[in-house]
């Protein structure tokens, strides 16, 4: 029995996405920028996908730019918007939060370190939610972009964009949101919240890896990172990855079309999982239970060694995540755990995330394997000698 409960890391490719991609791997090969028939066919497929993503987000197709993934979308938004705004003399200050994905956080820090921008990282409350008052207080007259993730990738906390967005819009400040984890799992009201830019990653919603999308409002000035053929409104040069983009479009459409069924199903699976984990004892939920992605269970297992637990679960066929890994592959305490003030010593923090393919049997297997492994590790005193 295996249980893949790491859908926040990546998801299996949906059969619908694979079916859409197949001709673009096996038969078609045109460059979407070419003028001839082969090129036009590829261009049509890319535009179909653009419409699918736009429809899923509730924006117009020209506001969707395809990228090489969520990280590239985040980098383009942060750096591109900041550069363009500074060139226009609007200022050089960015606001973000302490729990952003490193694609946002390190982009902002790089702008501060190498490009003389000023960056404010707003802390979050112990429940993993940013306080809108604190965030808005950090915004200044020279603030050119505020980046707040729609939902956190580790602890799954959903951020109050419904409050933050309109307040920023009123002050004329651009809001970027990393919606890589949130898309398809919580409603995104881009117009209502006044979102200026938004990042997506196809493989987080059962699309292929290596494709992402940046939703960028047409009136929002932005510089590109890659220069060359001038594709994607001149903001993202490089031959379009038609195969991946087609898969991204199909997966976006599938996700949007099935959200009404999937979200309650994921929530029920997650609740069952969480109930089983909490029953082990000395296990606590990290982050708000209420303002949380429906598929995410992130727990602090006290008196338990994280590396040992991950190994034991892996051996039992259970795939979960302990947060970030360094270059060599070692698990490290994550900045999100630090930001919410979670205890680190002798505590295993584990993320379980369900997805389209998750079954009740998988959840039950994971709970049984966890219960067994935690008990053994606690009896072995493994948390102590480190």
């Amino acid at each position: 029995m295996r249980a893949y409960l790491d859908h926040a890391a990546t998801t299996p490719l949906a059969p619908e996405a694979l079916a859409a991609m197949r001709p673009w791997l096996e038969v078609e090969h045109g460059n979407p920028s070419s003028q001839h028939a082969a090129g036009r066919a590829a261009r049509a497929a890319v535009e179909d996908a653009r419409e699918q993503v736009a429809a899923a987000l509730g924006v117009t197709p020209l506001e969707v730019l395809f990228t090489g993934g969520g990280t590239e979308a985040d980098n383009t938004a942060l750096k591109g918007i900041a550069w363009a705004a500074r060139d226009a003399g609007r200022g050089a200050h960015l606001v973000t939060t302490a729990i952003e994905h490193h694609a946002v956080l390190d982009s902002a820090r790089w702008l501060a370190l190498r490009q003389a921008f000023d960056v404010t990282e707003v802390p979050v409350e112990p429940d993993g939610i940013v306080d809108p008052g604190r965030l808005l207080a950090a915004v200044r007259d020279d603030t050119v972009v505020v980046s707040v993730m729609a939902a956190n990738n580790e602890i799954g906390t959903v951020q109050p964009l419904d409050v933050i967005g309109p307040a920023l819009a009123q002050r004329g400040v651009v809001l970027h949101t990393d919606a890589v984890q949130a898309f398809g799992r919580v409603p995104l009201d881009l117009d209502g919240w006044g979102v200026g830019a938004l990042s997506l990653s196809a493989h987080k919603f059962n699309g292929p890896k290596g494709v992402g999308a940046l939703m960028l409002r047409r009136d929002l000035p932005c510089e590109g990172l890659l220069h060359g053929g001038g594709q994607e409104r001149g903001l993202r040069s490089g031959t379009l990855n038609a195969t991946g983009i087609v898969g991204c479009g199909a997966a976006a459409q599938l996700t949007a079309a099935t959200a009404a069924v999937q979200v309650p199903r994921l929530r029920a699976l997650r609740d069952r999982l969480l109930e089983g984990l909490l029953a082990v004892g000395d296990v606590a939920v990290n982050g708000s239970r209420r303002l949380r992605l429906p598929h995410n269970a992130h727990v602090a297992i006290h008196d338990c060694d994280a590396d040992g637990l991950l190994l034991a679960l892996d051996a039992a066929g259970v795939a979960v995540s302990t947060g970030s890994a360094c270059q060599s592959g070692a698990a490290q305490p994550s900045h999100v755990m630090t930001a919410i003030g979670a205890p680190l010593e002798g505590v295993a923090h584990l993320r379980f995330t369900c997805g389209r393919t998750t079954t009740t049997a998988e959840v039950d297997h994971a709970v049984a394997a966890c219960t067994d492994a935690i008990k053994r590790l606690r009896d072995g005193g493994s948390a102590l000698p480190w």
Partner: protein
Amino acid sequence: MSGGVDSSAAAALLVDAGHDVTGVHLKMAAAPSGLPGTGRGEAGAERSRGAGTGKGCCTLDDARDARRVADVLGIPFYVWDLAQPFQERVVDDFVAEYAAGRTPNPCIRCNERVKYTALLARARAVGFDALATGHHVRLDQAAAGRYRMRRAADPGKDQTYVLYMASQDQLAHTLWPAGEHPKPELRAYAAERGLGTASKPDSHDICFIPSGDLGTFLRPRLGAREGTFVGPDGRVLGDHDGAYRYTVGQRRGLGLAGFEQPLYVTAVDGETVHVGHREDLEAPALIADGVTWVAGDPPKAAALGAQVRYRGRPLPAELSDLGGGRVRVAFTAERPVGVAPGQAVVLYDGDECLGGATITSASAARKPAPPVTRCS
């Protein structure tokens, strides 16, 4: 799995013997990654210079090499971050020992305080029967099930010296398959198994000082510690640029020329480095503490072989118990030259490693004279 050929071959030997093997690479220092202040990969300046050079035992290259070996063997593989305990229990101790004028052996401390305690405990808690490493030691069981540590099949690679502290309980959960084979045989086997580490050069340096430059490592931590060389008659012979650069028994690199006989370091006392002749270094006996015995009890025979450095050889000696974990080792035939406090004295009966202790002092044939103070 360090990413070297010994642990690679050890893993392969166990897989081929039908064991259920899981590979673990120990990350002993923070590697730089990301941007400053991101909380990822800070500190470890010395290590970062080593990263990518393939030297030492904990670089990114080594982690990758180990991972690829695990891939070939088809076993699970993990990197466990031990940077903090390694820093606290091995590196800090190493620096403190030098600060106190001793010559530490960090490999012994690592085995004692990290690998065969924390790592073994975790492995057992997770449900593994044994911890295997690539160390060159032969492990067998004598009568009544007692575990014995014996010199490696490849005597030139023997590592009993750095594992003398192993207990019966630890040995009951230890495997050292590499110790049963001469190194060339291990390399050939690794090559035959298609392991990328088969022809990787042996590492010789201290893993957390991949440059091999002890002075550069210690100076920012201990200050320059400049001082004087004092000769056997108490006369100041010259200045030196840092006491920790000198180890008892050292002859090269003293920069003292024009003497009839070659001069050796006989003692390091604060900033003063005592030098003398070879016979001044001969130690008829030494005192050591923290003694441990592989069998659990002291050996019955008093006549043993005593080895005072990693690449040394055992010399005939008699052991006497001073109580409180302290022992006196008296050399009955040949005397060791240059016994450095901080190093281990490891005791052997033939090719069996019986145990050992940390040298606290050597009784020199001649005491180093106090420096002559000049009146002004």
